[in-house]
């Protein structure tokens, strides 16, 4: 996964659900509710950034926060679950 630009896998859709007041990831016959940090990472998986780029974008958005380890760990879990593809 390292170095590759990341996007949400085909068949998966990230979406804000007003009724649940959270982002969800929808996929064939299933749905995962996301916490705000997970949603913030996945929103950046649009095919334009690799893992480093995603960390940099989040650190720019939340200055002073050391997010690298958490973001990388989440990306690994997301990849294992099949949510991500290399663009």
């Amino acid at each position, binding site marked *: 996964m390292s170095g590759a630009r990341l996007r949400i896998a085909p068949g998966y859709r990230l979406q804000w659900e007003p009724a*649940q007041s959270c982002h969800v990831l929808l996929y064939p*016959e299933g749905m995962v509710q996301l916490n705000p940090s997970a949603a913030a990472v996945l929103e950046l998986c649009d095919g334009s950034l690799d893992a480093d780029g995603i960390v940099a974008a989040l650190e720019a958005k939340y200055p002073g926060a050391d997010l690298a380890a958490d973001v990388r760990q989440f990306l690994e879990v997301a990849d294992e679950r099949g949510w991500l593809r290399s663009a």
Partner: protein
Amino acid sequence: MSAAGYVPPEVPSRPLWLLAELTYACPLQCPYCSNPLDYTAVREELDTETWKRVLREARAMGAAQLGLSGGEPATRTDLEEIVAEARRLGYYTNLITSGLGLDAARIERLHAAGLDHIQVSFQASTEELNNHLAGTDAFRHKLEIARAVKAAGYPMVLCFVLHRDNTDSMDAILTLAAQLGADYVELATTQYYGWAWVNRDRLLPTREQLVRAEAVAHRWQADMKGRMKIYYVVPDYFEDRPKACMNGWGKVFLTVAPDGTALPCHSARELPGLSFPNVRDHSVEWIWKDSPGFNRFRGYGWMKEPCRSCDEKEKDFGGCRCQAFLLTGAPENADPVCSKSPEHGRVLSAIEQAAATPSERPLVFRNPRSVRRLHGEA
């Protein structure tokens, strides 16, 4: 249909999953069909505009997953229009199809309308058995449709319904799926309601068959890790705790039948003493929140012993109301799959009775002739 991977919400109960049974019409005659035994009595299907209203109202209440099912949903000529409206409203749209009524051009049109996912059902891994179970020559067309689905850019999701006559072919089934390039394979256990209930003695596998099948499924799951995802669940008759049916009555699932009857699950209309509202007469909000049918088995107050004082009731909600009714005669009893149920023996005898039933006994196929015969005899 399964809710594999479904995470129950922490927010108050809302119909997150809408199953729209668009029609009972189907070119297939599968002997395990979940449609009602008198499906031919439903003549007036909901029209396009009413379906659109149901979609809007359920979406406003939080529904996010939409299953388009039947019968064969592709027999509806307005399928594209319904899909387009669903997608516009923000649903994740799942088409649950036999493949009949589809071709590559129609799949493209559905794709353009915003369809998210297609699940193609198979009856078996060989043309002969598949066509026998389907009651029609469907196998080659299904292969074509499975390939066309993938060519249109969708993941290939195949569903095989398992029972005594095809459980031993698990290896061949998974070989076929792998050759086709399937991304997901659902090895769906026959659920003994509707037509499968009539055929239960012929369809229920033996324990030995299951042990073998489970080993094959687990080997394939390990071998195909990361390439083809395989879902396999042991039939609940062979478990000693019941399934958390529908994630709880009126908690997450809303089914709307072809005639507009709203149900907490697609089998619930078999339950005696309950009447279910129709979307032609009521709003989805009233149906979900206020209708007596949807409130009947909500929460825990309706439970009898051993469920009432059971420390697992919040995990499985006492199992399935329809199964409790079919096997014990009363829907408020514990699902007898549970070994704590005083009637658990009925499940064990069902397994024995099925094992003693010769495979030569003919299956009852789902077709108008069988409806007439079943109801003529009743």
